[in-house]
C-alpha cells in the first residue's frame, strides 16, 4: 500500500491529539506513524502523520482533518519536495566478540552509541525510513532486544513553508 506524509498544523490545546486519533479510528484510516510537537508559535503544534492508502483515502483523510475545528492547515508532502527524518534508539546484544563489529556498523551509519553494558549496546540513529530500516536489518543478526522509533517528521524543501494562515508560499 502506498504511504503518504501529511503535515498538519493544529491548535496547541488539550485533547487535539485525541480528536485526530478518534477521527482516524472511526473512519477506518490506517496511521503508520504520528509525531507531534509545538512549532515556532507556542499556540500551534505540528503533527506529521504517515498514512497508508490510495489517492482516494489520502484525499478523504485531508478533507476530514480539515473539518476538525482545531486543525488549521493540512498539507500533503511529496517525497521529492520534502526532507524526512526519524529517530530510533536500538538496544542490541553485544558481547566482547561482537562489540567491535557492531561499533563499525554504527560508524558506517553515522549513528551514536549512547549506552553500554556487559551484554548490550544502545544505539541512537536518525535518518529517513530507509536508513533506519537498513540499520535495523544489519543489527538483527546480533539480536535486537528493544527498539523505539519516533515516527517520521518532515518539512518542505527550500523556501516554502506552511504557515498558520492560508498562504502556502511566503
Amino acid at each position, binding site marked *: 500500500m502506498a504511504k503518504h506524509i501529511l503535515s498538519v498544523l493544529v491548535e496547541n490545546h488539550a485533547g487535539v491529539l485525541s480528536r485526530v486519533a478518534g477521527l482516524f479510528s*472511526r473512519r477506518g484510516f490506517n496511521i503508520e506513524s504520528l509525531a507531534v510537537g509545538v512549532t515556532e508559535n507556542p499556540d500551534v503544534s505540528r503533527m506529521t502523520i504517515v498514512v497508508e492508502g490510495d489517492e482516494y483515502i489520502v484525499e478523504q483523510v485531508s*478533507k476530514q482533518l480539515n473539518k476538525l*475545528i482545531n486543525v*488549521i492547515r493540512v498539507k500533503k508532502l511529496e517525497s521529492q519536495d520534502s526532507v524526512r527524518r526519524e529517530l530510533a534508539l536500538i538496544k542490541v546484544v553485544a558481547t566482547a566478540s561482537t562489540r567491535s563489529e557492531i561499533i563499525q556498523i554504527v560508524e558506517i551509519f553515522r549513528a551514536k552509541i549512547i549506552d553500554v553494558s556487559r551484554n548490550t549496546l544502545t544505539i541512537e540513529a536518525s535518518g529517513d525510513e530507509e536508513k533506519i530500516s537498513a540499520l535495523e536489518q544489519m543489527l538483527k543478526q546480533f539480536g535486537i532486544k528493544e527498539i523505539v522509533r519516533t515516527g517520521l517528521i518532515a518539512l518542505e524543501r527550500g523556501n516554502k513553508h506552511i504557515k*498558520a494562515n492560508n498562504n502556502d508560499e511566503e
Partner: protein
Amino acid sequence: MKMLGSKAMVKALEIENVSHIFGYPGAAICPFYDALLDSNIKHILTRHEQGAAHAASGYARATGKTGVCVATSGPGATNLITGIATAYMDSIPIVAITGQVSTEQIGRDVFQEADITGATAPFCKHNYLVKNAEDLPRIFKEAFHIASTGRPGPVLIDVPIDIQNSELDFNYPEEVNIKGYKPTYKGHPLQIKKIAEAIEKAKAPVICAGGGIISARAEPELMALVEKCNIPVVTTLMGIGAIPSTHEMYLGMLGSHGNYVANYAIHNADVVIIMAARVGDRAMGTAKKIAKKARIIHIDIDPAEIGKNIDVEIPVVGDIKSVLQDLLQEVGEYSKSEWVEKLQEISRQHSQRKEEDVDPQGPVKPRYLLRTLSDLLMDDDNVILTTEVGQNQIWAANNLIIRKPGGFITSGGMGTMGYGLPAAIGAKVGSPDSTVINISGDGSFQMSLQELGTIKQNKLGIKIIILNNSGLGMVRELQKRKYSGRYYQVNLESNPDFIKLAGAYDIKGEKITRNCEVEEALRRMLSEEGAFILECSVDPEEPTL
C-alpha cells in the same frame, strides 16, 4: 460587568437570541437553572434528555434557528448522545449544554461524572470543556457560530459546576476568529460556468436536491432554476419540501425506498446535478452505476462530501443559495421537453398502477390515510409533519404532499426511532401557529411516549397518528425477504391500549380499524384544538413500497 458563570451562560443565550430551550435539570447544572429562572428565556421540561435533544432538533428545523438543549452531568449528558448523533447525521444546528462535576473532581469517577466531550467527539462539529469562567462568553459565541454556519451541526458545551459558580468579567465578543474554521460560501465562477454549459448541452438533466437546500433557505433559487431551465427534480429524504410536492417538475423521492419515476430519472439522466446532498447510501447506493452513465455535478458547502461517495466531474464548494444565484445568471431558458414528457408519462403509468383497491371494511391502508390527510390539509398553509422511523416514515415520505420547506421533519441519516414525537414538540414550540402532526408506528411511539407528559404540561395541540401493525414492520419485512420469514423479536402484540394511555395524560384519542372510518376520524382530529392521538389498525403484511 462582573457576574457568576451561570449568569454569564444565560446572558450569552439571550444575546444569541435564544427564546426557548429544552432540558432536564440535575445537580451539576443547578447553578445554571437558578440563573435561568430570572431570564425571559422559556424552558420546556421534557421527560427524558433524549426528548430534549430531539425537541431542539425539531425546533431548529421548523424555525431555522439553532435549537438548544440542556442536561446535567453523567447520565443526563449521556442520554443526549443519541439526539446529538441524530442531529449530526442530518446536519441540524443545535447547541447542547451539559453540567459537569467540579474541575478538580474530573477524572476521579465521582458521582454522575462522564467524559461527555470525549463521548460526543464523533458526533459533534465541535465541543468544549470550559476550564475558565472567563472563556464562557467566547465559547458560547463560537459554539453558536460553528453550529449555524457552513454545514450546520451540533456543538456541545460542558460546564463544570465550579465554573458556573465562579465570577467573571462579562464581555461578549463582537466577532469570532477561529483559525481552523473558515467555510467557503462563494462558488468558483469558472466551475459555475461549466455547470451552465453542461445544463445547456444536456438532453436529460435531473436535479437531486438534498436537505442542504432547506438549511440554506435556497428554495426560491431552486424553483427559479427549475422553471427557467425546465429541469426535473428528485429529492432525498432530507430534501423533501425543498420544492413543493405538487410542482409539475417534482418526481418524488429517489433511492432504495423511493419512487419509481425518481429512480428512473436518476438512472437514465445524462447530467445529474446533486445539490446540497451527501450522496447517502439509501438515496444513491447505486452511485457507481449512475456515475457511469451521467455527468455528475456536485454542489455542497462541505468539501469533504465531494468525491466521497461518487466520482464528480464538476465539483463546486459553496453555499447552495449563493451558488444557485450565480448559476441563474449564467443559464438561459431551456426546454428539455422530450425528456420531461417521457418522465411525466412514466409517472402517470406508475401512479395509476399504485392506485390500490381500498377495501372500506378492511384494515386501514396507510397510503390511503396519508393521501386523505394531505387532501384535508390542502387549505392549511402552515403544516408541519414529523415522522418516526420504519414503514411509517417511508409511507409518509412517499405519500404526503409537502408544500413548504421545513414542513417535513424526519430522522434521515440515523433513522432514530422515537425522534418524531419530541421533534413535533420542538416544532410546535417554535411554530405555535402551525398544525403539527406526527406520523408514528406502534414501536417508535413507545420509544418516546413519556413525552406525552411534556405535551400535557405545555398544552401543545400536537396530533399523533399511530399506524399500529402490532410490530416492528420494517424489520419484519426484512426478515420476511431475507430470512425466509423467520420472524423473531418483531412482534409487539402486548402493546398497551394507546387510547387509554392518552386518556391517562388527559389527551383525547380515537381508535379506528377500517378504511371507511379514516376520513371522518382525520377531520375530528384536525378540528380538535388540543392534542389528539389517532390509532389506526394496519395489516402487519402491508408492504412498505
